């Protein structure tokens, strides 16, 4: 691995951004010819430049240099068509406000603390361009706008009076929308992250209020209780099983947003669902501790409402360099959205809570927490980092597989030991699927936690994964067969822990740290890696040449900020763009206006000539 960069001059444009490329999985034909594309790297920021968003300003395509700029499209709080970008609404699609009158805009503080806009997809339909954006609050929100493209320059802008709220009320509302993908059929495939533990809810709920008892989860109960705002503060109407799914937004021939929650794809902490070129196979990452890796095979192309759900089994072949394994897939169940919706909502009225409870799906018993053994008839599992003894109730296999996907996967022998799976992308030219693992830790170690003996994450489980602790994380590549089914998984890039430097960095500055979002620029050899790290003082976005293993630093974010959901749209009427959301990019820059401090989605580009 080599790292390249050039020094940045004193007059670096604050708002200029990233990097390169081409290729996407948005349905364009796959090219096996690599364009001669390279980006100019940037140095590690020092001093006041640590407060700024900094990025490369040029890319070379076929030997010709193109200037790159990052165009802000839409910022949180922007008004358009009497809608406010990021405003969260309730089960009647009425805006939610707090007691101070403030609208529930999914955004952090003006000092950059909090969650908000996470992913935007650009969709080409009806000869038009649409953008669907999703917000990462406990009550999720999605908005659709139309984009306009200057044919001569490729410049994108948001069309006046085009913003529409995407109602999710038929799917019980949205929840913690994380990363997303523009599917090969130009739909927005979203995510609902950090599903709530239904077993814990059932144990700690106040039946009369529907809320988890205050303090029951050391304060974390507010994370679930917050959803009551969607239900007009009536928590008895909500079930944890309503959240943790994969929503999809398609644009119909009239330009309307059609929303579907794909219950058939399973319920867990969905970071990202990524559709392969066959338009049927979907890989799904699960963000958390002791989590699984899942695959969905749709019955029909472009239809994710019916298919078969699988969980990965890691059979380790090497412990070295971040590890290698053969991957096999354990079938969990076949389901359709309507079958599972009928389980969640038997009376067909989303306003009433008739969802099953955890105890309707499983019998549970106490096990021996020292040996990890369970009473006869029960199976020991360790999913989400705790040991349980479970037995699926008779006839509830499909419901358990879909509503409690991670637990069920563990029950049937799949691996639930991964630690914070994040981004997924695909290099079609080389048949390689890439998955970012934020850390190699806990369940991924062998009865250890952060390198020290600790069985919490392996007791009762398979202990399939036995790797060395790496707090800086790793990038894994998976070979896929002719059916787009992954067969192997190996680390190809490992972050490197260092002694704390004078700036407080604890991962090598010339390498990745806690990799998060990934995107591949088809037609090149370039994989892009975004970080969500506290071990690099400034988060970075890298390009990684999968052939030369060259890492190039393309962007650094301000302190305490993150750039999320990078995604390449290779061909939008001949132009290539990378979408990215930057959170509070100007917050630490003196003199910046409040508008400049808002999180925004923008595009890097346009770039032309990517083959």
């Amino acid at each position, binding site marked *: 691995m080599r790292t390249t960069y050039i020094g940045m001059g004193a007059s670096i444009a604050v708002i200029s951004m990233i990097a390169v490329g081409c290729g996407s999985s948005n349905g364009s034909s796959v090219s096996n010819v690599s364009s001669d594309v390279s980006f100019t790297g940037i140095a590690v920021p020092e*001093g*006041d430049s*640590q*407060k700024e968003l900094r990025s490369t300003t040029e890319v070379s395509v076929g030997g010709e240099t193109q200037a790159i700029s990052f165009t802000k499209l839409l910022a949180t*709080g922007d*008004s358009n068509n*009497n*809608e*406010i970008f990021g*405003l969260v609404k309730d089960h009647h699609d009425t*805006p939610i*406000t*707090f*007691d*101070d*009158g*403030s*609208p*529930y*805009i*999914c*955004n*952090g*503080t*003006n*000092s*950059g*603390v*909090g*969650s*908000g806009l996470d992913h935007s997809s650009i969709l080409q339909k009806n000869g038009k361009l649409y953008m669907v954006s999703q917000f990462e*609050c*406990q009550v999720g929100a999605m908005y659709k706008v139309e984009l306009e493209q200057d044919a001569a320059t490729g410049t994108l802008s948001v069309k006046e009076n085009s913003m529409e709220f995407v109602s999710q009320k038929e799917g019980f509302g949205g929840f*913690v929308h994380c990363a997303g993908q523009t599917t090969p059929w130009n739909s927005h495939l979203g995510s609902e992250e*950090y599903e709530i533990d239904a077993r814990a809810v059932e144990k700690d709920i106040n039946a009369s209020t529907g809320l988890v008892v*205050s*303090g029951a989860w*050391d*304060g*974390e109960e*507010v*994370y679930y209780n*917050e959803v009551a705002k969607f239900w007009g503060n009536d928590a008895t109407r909500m079930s944890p099983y309503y959240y943790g799914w994969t929503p999809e937004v398609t644009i119909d021939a009239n330009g309307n947003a059609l929303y579907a929650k794909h219950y058939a794809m399973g319920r867990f902490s969905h970071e990202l669902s990524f559709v392969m070129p066959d338009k049927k196979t979907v890989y799904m990452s699960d*963000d*958390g501790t002791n989590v699984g890796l899942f695959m969905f095979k749709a019955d029909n192309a472009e239809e994710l409402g019916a298919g078969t759900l699988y969980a990965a089994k890691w059979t380790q072949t090497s412990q070295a360099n971040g590890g290698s394994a053969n991957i096999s897939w354990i079938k969990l169940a076949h389901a359709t959205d309507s079958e599972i919706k009928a389980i969640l909502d038997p009376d067909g009225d989303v306003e009433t809570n008739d969802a099953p409870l955890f105890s309707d799906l499983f019998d549970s018993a106490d096990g021996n927490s020292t040996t990890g053994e369970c009473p006869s008839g029960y199976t020991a599992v360790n999913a989400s980092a705790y040991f349980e003894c479970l037995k699926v109730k008779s006839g509830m296999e499909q419901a358990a597989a879909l509503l409690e996907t991670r637990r069920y996967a563990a029950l049937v022998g799949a691996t639930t030991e991964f630690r*914070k799976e994040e981004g997924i992308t695909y290099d079609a030219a080389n048949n390689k699927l890439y998955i970012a693992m934020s850390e190699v830790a806990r369940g991924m170690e062998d009865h250890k936690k*952060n390198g020290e003996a600790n069985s919490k994450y392996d007791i009762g489980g398979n202990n399939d994964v036995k790797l060395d602790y790496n707090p800086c994380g790793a990038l894994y590549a998976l070979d896929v067969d002719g059916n787009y089914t992954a067969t192997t998984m190996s680390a190809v890039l490992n972050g490197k822990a260092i002694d*704390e430097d*004078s*700036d*407080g960095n604890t991962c090598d500055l010339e390498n990745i740290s806690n990799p998060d979002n990934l995107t591949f620029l088809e037609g090149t050899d370039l994989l892009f890696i975004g970080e969500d790290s*506290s071990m690099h*003082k400034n988060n970075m976005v890298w390009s990684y040449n999968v052939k030369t293993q060259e890492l190039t630093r393309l962007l650094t974010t301000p*302190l*305490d900020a993150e750039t999320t959901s990078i995604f390449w749209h290779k061909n939008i009427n001949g132009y290539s763009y990378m979408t990215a959301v930057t959170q509070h990019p100007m917050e*630490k820059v*003196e003199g910046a206006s*409040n508008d400049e401090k808002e999180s925004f989605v923008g595009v890097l580009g346009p770039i032309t000539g990517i083959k």
Partner: protein
Amino acid sequence: MPYIILLLTILTAILSLVSCDTTGYKNAQTDFKATVARNNRAAYITSQCYTKTVDENSTVHNPCYTCHTASAPPNYINDYALQESYDMGEYSRSNRFDNLFRDRSDAVAGISDAAILSYIREDNYRKDGLITLAASLSSVPDAWDSNGNGKWDGYLPDCYFDFDAEGFDRNPDGEDTGWRAFGYYPFPGTFWPANGSTDDVLIRLPDPLREDAGGNTSRSVYRINLAIVESLIKESDVILEESVDETQYGVDLDHDGILGTAGKIVFVWEKPDFDTATGKLGNFSMSYVGRAKELLESNELLIAPGLYPQGTEFLHTVRYIDIDETNTTIRMAPRMKELRYARKVSWNSYSQLQNAALSEIKEKNGFPDRLRTIVGDTEHGLQNGLGWVFQGFIEDGSGELRPQNYEETLYCIGCHSGIGAIRDGTFVFARKFGTDHFRKGWYHWSQKNNGLKDIAEPLTPGGAYEYTTYLQANGAGDEFRGNEEIMQKFFDQEGKLLESEAEKIRTDISYLLYPSVKRALELNKAYKVIVDEQSFIHGRDPHVKPLVNVHTEVTPKASTMIKAAVY
């Protein structure tokens, strides 16, 4: 600072570095340009958080509840469950405040009473009516100029501590500086004089709240707006200092339905209207007066219970403990240990504050060992992430005030964000004395001859005696149970609170909050040792003997054995 003094300061710093080598201390004074903590990246988790809550008799002590408590919006932290466990991560499990374990007996013995009294009676803030620190900062030494632009970009001290009969501070020309002193009930525990320091707090509202509708400075407007802010922070009615003709201001302050004469601010909050089309709030049930009223209508300023208007500032001086002329009681010393400054630089709505609190939970769940990222530096102060910037000045090795470096300021952030006990990042304005107190509650401690004497014990929201409750829950008068004077005075051999002694606090809180003259001198000397060492990042708690009721290491998530309580 004249160059000669600067040179002396640097020389002192070098000398202290050398002398500190034997104790392993790095020289904090050279670290002004750092934007990370060198010694303790978790310095926002204060030394008190490592207290041993169970003693050798298995008795459980709970000093934790004062900070970690059930909170009401807009404080969404609601962290009372933290009383029950040491919620540290892999890094913060180690207590890096190793000063706690040092024995300063020899060093303290080497300081005479006369020497320490002479030292603390010297004013290190003003000399000849001028603010010496402001003069130093105005020609900023390179060492403090963290961005190297040749000027000081942080707070330039502008309070003269020259108060009139209403507590307003005036500059040498007799003009108002905007700062106003107020009396308040000291927060339970470490901030009692008995535990080490005297202190004061001043507030300043931004210009529009000190100006009439025409933009002219007006004390009348300012007094009313201060009462409105007090009402919002306390979420209760506030008696006005003098009756107000509401017709002059166009605001029904007492909510009696007419514009007449108001004797008090009546706290009535109804959710304002939000207009999706304009994105603006309107129809406020409470309003500022004067120019701020217009800015509220245009939403350039906002208003809400529990929140200060954007631009609000606080000054907080922490001082040594002086002895009065009769040598029988204590008072505030001229010498400042610290000058602490806070400014609310941005307004964050309930929605934003709720989002921030929930995101902290999510971050902690995803990365339990990840430390908070606190942004800032020596010159600009540190941001608490909720709209406030905090900046501190502390004594250098020669006793002059100097800026705090990043890590020294990081220590302040943990309490001024992320705990349930605060109101919009602050502690004591919500504890301000009412209009029924001396000078209607608006005075500086130095203006009242008998200090905290004859002030009655405050009550908790539940109606219990607050300081007595603290003594009962904690079984001591400080977090570390190191204040033996209070232990001996208020508790029997079995550690049971002596009701006869607690009874004396009812009408005179100084009986608990003041140290004896002997203890005061010891506390001063113990702290002077820390100043000489410049070892603040290793712990600022003044004690002579090593503290024993504090962990050097905790097991993450280990139980404190406390059953969480909210009083």
